[in-house]
């Protein structure tokens, strides 16, 4: 046993290398949200405020100028129409007329839309970019956050279970 001790540094190196290699595959834009586990933050913009949110629901941060928001839009429509999920939208750094034109073109899956012209509500939600989607439980506690456009996979694997379905 003692004779094998000389292999210990190699083993330590291998373990460290494996750990760092896994880290290389991670997405540095994926920052854990400190909001998860807390109630929805206090914010108030035109059309939407904290008191309006009735969980369980999704809060989706979007913008008319955001291309991935277009990509995820059919999924939001599906969730609202086929699954009966309540979705609140926050138009981030967007003119209300542009946000409304976006919704007129693609359909409006939101129960209510708030217009966050200067991104101050975005700071309250800890938003780093659009789109971002938060899941609220029945007590309006944030239970999950997804950064970036939703995909059928994340909806099935993360969003619906977080909504309790």
């Amino acid at each position: 046993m003692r004779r094998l001790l000389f292999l210990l540094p190699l083993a330590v190196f291998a373990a460290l290398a494996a750990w760092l290699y896994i880290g290389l595959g991670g997405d540095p834009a994926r920052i854990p949200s400190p909001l998860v586990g807390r109630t929805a933050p206090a914010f108030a913009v035109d059309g939407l405020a904290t008191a309006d949110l009735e969980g369980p629901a999704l809060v989706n941060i979007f913008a008319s100028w955001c291309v991935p928001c277009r990509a995820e839009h059919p999924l939001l429509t599906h969730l609202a129409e086929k699954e009966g999920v309540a979705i609140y939208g926050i138009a981030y750094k967007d003119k209300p007329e542009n946000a409304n034109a976006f919704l007129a073109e693609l359909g409006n899956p939101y129960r209510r839309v708030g217009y966050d012209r200067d991104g101050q509500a975005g700071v309250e939600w800890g938003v780093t970019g659009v789109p971002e989607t938060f899941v609220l439980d029945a007590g309006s506690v944030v239970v999950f956050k997804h950064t970036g456009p939703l995909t059928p996979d994340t909806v099935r694997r993360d969003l619906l279970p977080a909504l309790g379905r």
Partner: protein
Amino acid sequence: MTRPAAILALLLALLSAPAMAALDASEMLADPALEARARALAKGLRCVVCQNQSIDDSGADLARDLRRSLRARLLAGDSDEEALAYLTHRYGDYVLLDPPLKPATWALWFAPAGFAVLALLLVVRYFRRRE
């Protein structure tokens, strides 16, 4: 201006562009003491979309929003700690360029010293055995 001098001037102007992009005068607070505190705090806050820059020297929109929020907190009478707490509450410890010392970051803070001690012990043992 001679041609080489003109090219040099152009290059310098291009190089200085990112430095000018960050803080603009309209963002600054009227009170110089408050502004100095805001600048000092901003240097220690990470721009979360351009991760190795502080919000003080980043020209990103989000960095400007955070600078504005930070100044609004200071104007409202927050202490430095309260203003930082406001941002970590929303963006997590990740916004701090200087990570706080707590159980989750012990490995980060103590591992280098730990490895140095371990290496020293191994070296001492190696030379003892050779004697």
